[in-house]
């Protein structure tokens, strides 16, 4: 858009920021990194610590590595939030997928195990889609419910496979922990993934409909869109993405548990919201969510550095999220 030149006008600025939330978010990210460097000199710029290198590739790699599963789960939130929905089962689905893959691999082989893991995620997503699209249960309730059901099923399932042991596919370990030229191998999965999501949102008919449902469902319906079809496909896709993120996370953590990826759920919502996606639908950006995920990781590092007790960390985390979104909403309202 040609509004860059008119930035001085606050209304135009607000509008510009709303259309391009990524720009100020990247600025915020760099600001936070600068604060981090200030708190612990040499952490990001090794030269200042007397070591070699302008920027610590290791640190940057680590930042990216842990932001990837978060950003993937944030994709679930961005896509569903576009239609004014949400996917609260994403964390559990990732966990289920990881656990199923790790426990089935020694029994039926890696490929089949991964396929079944993705299938399980898709199934949960399908149920979410039918519930919210056909039965019209609110997605918040629907996905919360399926998340709990999936957790219960996982605990039952665990009793059957308790003796088989686990195996983590080598490929996933390579993706999760390996590095190429200092950068995490997870990017080999994430970059194509992100491109597909961005393409869906901008250049596909399906993506158009996600925005349409969130902007004005009645207008969509009037134009011949059967919203249940869109929602079923959307939540199934979201389930598949969450399962994929779970597999990657399994390779990264290398220890399947019954709550492996659950703690990523709320940060994934936060990353989407910080990234400029509106929970009321019709507005959202995956690029913003990726930066949002990076910002959350930096903040997390910061709080660890400060050696805060867990309670204070969570508290500050919440405050930062509220502040960022508060500022953001303010800008939008001016626009």
């Amino acid at each position: 858009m040609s509004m860059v030149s008119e930035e001085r006008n606050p209304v135009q600025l607000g509008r510009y920021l709303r259309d391009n939330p990524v720009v100020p978010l990247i600025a915020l990210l760099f600001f936070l990194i600068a604060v981090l460097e200030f708190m612990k000199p040499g952490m990001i710029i090794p030269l200042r610590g007397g070591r070699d290198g302008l920027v610590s590739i290791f640190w940057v790699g680590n930042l990216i590595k842990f932001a990837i599963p978060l950003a993937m789960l944030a994709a679930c939130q961005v896509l569903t939030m576009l239609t004014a929905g949400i996917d609260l089962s994403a964390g559990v689905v990732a966990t289920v997928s990881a656990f199923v893959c790790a426990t089935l691999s020694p029994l039926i082989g890696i490929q089949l195990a991964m396929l079944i893991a993705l299938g399980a995620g898709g199934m949960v997503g399908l149920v979410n889609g039918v519930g919210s699209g056909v039965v019209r249960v609110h997605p918040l309730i629907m996905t919360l419910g399926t998340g709990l059901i999936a957790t219960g099923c996982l605990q039952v399932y665990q009793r059957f496979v308790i003796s088989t042991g686990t195996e983590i596919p080598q490929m996933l370990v390579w993706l999760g922990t390996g590095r190429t030229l200092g950068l995490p191998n997870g990017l080999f999965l994430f970059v194509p993934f992100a491109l597909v999501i961005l393409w869906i949102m901008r250049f596909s008919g399906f993506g158009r409909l996600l925005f349409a449902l969130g902007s004005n469902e009645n207008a969509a319906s009037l134009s011949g869109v059967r919203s249940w079809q869109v929602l079923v496909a959307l939540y199934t896709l979201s389930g598949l993405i969450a399962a994929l993120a779970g597999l990657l996370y399994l390779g990264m953590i290398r220890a399947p548990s019954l709550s492996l990826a659950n703690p990523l759920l709320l940060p994934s919502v936060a990353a989407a919201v910080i990234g400029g996606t509106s929970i009321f639908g019709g507005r959202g950006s995956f690029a913003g969510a990726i930066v949002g995920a990076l910002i959350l990781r930096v903040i997390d590092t910061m709080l660890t550095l400060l050696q805060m007790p867990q309670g204070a960390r969570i508290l500050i985390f919440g405050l930062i999220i509220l502040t960022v979104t508060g500022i953001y909403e303010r800008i939008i309202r001016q626009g």
Partner: protein
Amino acid sequence: MLTDNTSQPLLDAANVTKSFGAVHALTNASLRVGVGEIVALMGANGAGKSTFVKILTGALHPDGGEVIIKGKAAHVGSPAEARASGLVPVYQEPSLVPDLSVFDNLRLTDTPVEAFIDFVEKLGIENLSLNAMISALPLATLRILDLARALASKPDVLLLDEMTAALPTDLVERVLSVVREAADAGCGVVYISHRFAEISAICDTATVLRDGKTVGELKIEPGVEDRVVELMLGAKIDLGQREVGKESRIRTVTPRLSVNGITAAPKLKDVSFDLYPGEVLGVVALEGQGQDELFEVLAGFEKPSDGSIEVDGEPVTFSHPADAIAKGLTLVPGDRADALMAERSVRENIALPFSASIRNWGPLRQRHEKSRVAHAIERLQIDTRAQGEVQRLSGGNQQKVTIGRWLAKGVETLLLFDPTRGIDVRTKRQIYPLVRELAEQGAAVLFYTSELEEVPLACDRAVVIFNGHVVDVIDASKADEQTLMRAAYGLSKTESAA
């Protein structure tokens, strides 16, 4: 019983003005109701009637003028205060809380229960249990309960807004006689209705609004209808001339759309008509005569409870607007906000139907889309300076976008529901020739408008719907407004053109 000039009026609203932004809804509205008097408040669509009612009942603040109830300036700030000042309204929609019993509803408004029961019985409802849940009672009963509750609170002025709409005939008669009785006992009544029969049965005078002004106060006497219609019409803005030589010529044997005995709750009853390709068929109706239901049924939003629809001679049933679109029936709804994605671009809004079916969920056909959208924008002359978000467009341009959506898709049968409501005259003048042109190119257009003067400009024939029924079919190109207005009020039959 006429106003006793020596006593002071119960309700005296004088020189009331109200503007919404640049729109002057009321410029000089006045209404006087004396002791024991029943005054009909009349006005065509857009005359400012609803705004006036909202001001009288305290839902809106006037910009200027005063509402005086029983000699006291009523600084009406809320519906509750209006009630306390002595003016009690009864609307078309029941205002009882559905999840409470009758008794609990009475307690909410401190209504005396015995007086209430008296009135309920007088109004012809027997064996009403006070413990019955409101949600379990039929609609007609609820209207009666509303009226009984209002009467029981001993109002000084009773305001009845279309309260007899869709009441069965025997109940209407009871209502009228009870209202007359209340007036004889000294109550003042403002009576709003589209039905001349009821007005001449009980009203003493009629106050006529036009373009936000009170233009006349007439005594109700035989033959007053013509005078009222004349006053409601007045002089209008010039909307341009119908282009000569653009009459409909195409009359194939099979109608594009054939509607047979469609009935849909709550208001549409047994409506039939045919719409031919190449024809613009007007729908003439006062507000709330069933036209909303008709368009919802035809666009696939509602299923009719009875009757059938045929498209090109084949029976069809729609369970979703997508089904109707597949048969070529496309709707431009009355409220633009229903049709547009406010924060999305002009292009996305126009191109929305392209992605609707699963087949088109894949890559966008950018070039195809771009040229179709550009074509629609050009044909409608949409001002695209603010095309990034349709909410930044003017109302007229927004409306063009909702029409443009179907131009881009290709028009077969266009259902236009009041497409010129609330838009500027220039845009209106662009829309009539466009509609004619579409018909000339073979499209069938069903055109409901709340502005009667548009009917001869755009339509070939017009069906008149009153109280849910088709009461007349008029040759629209020759119909004058007076004829249309009389027909819309169900007054008299004209020669049928069908």
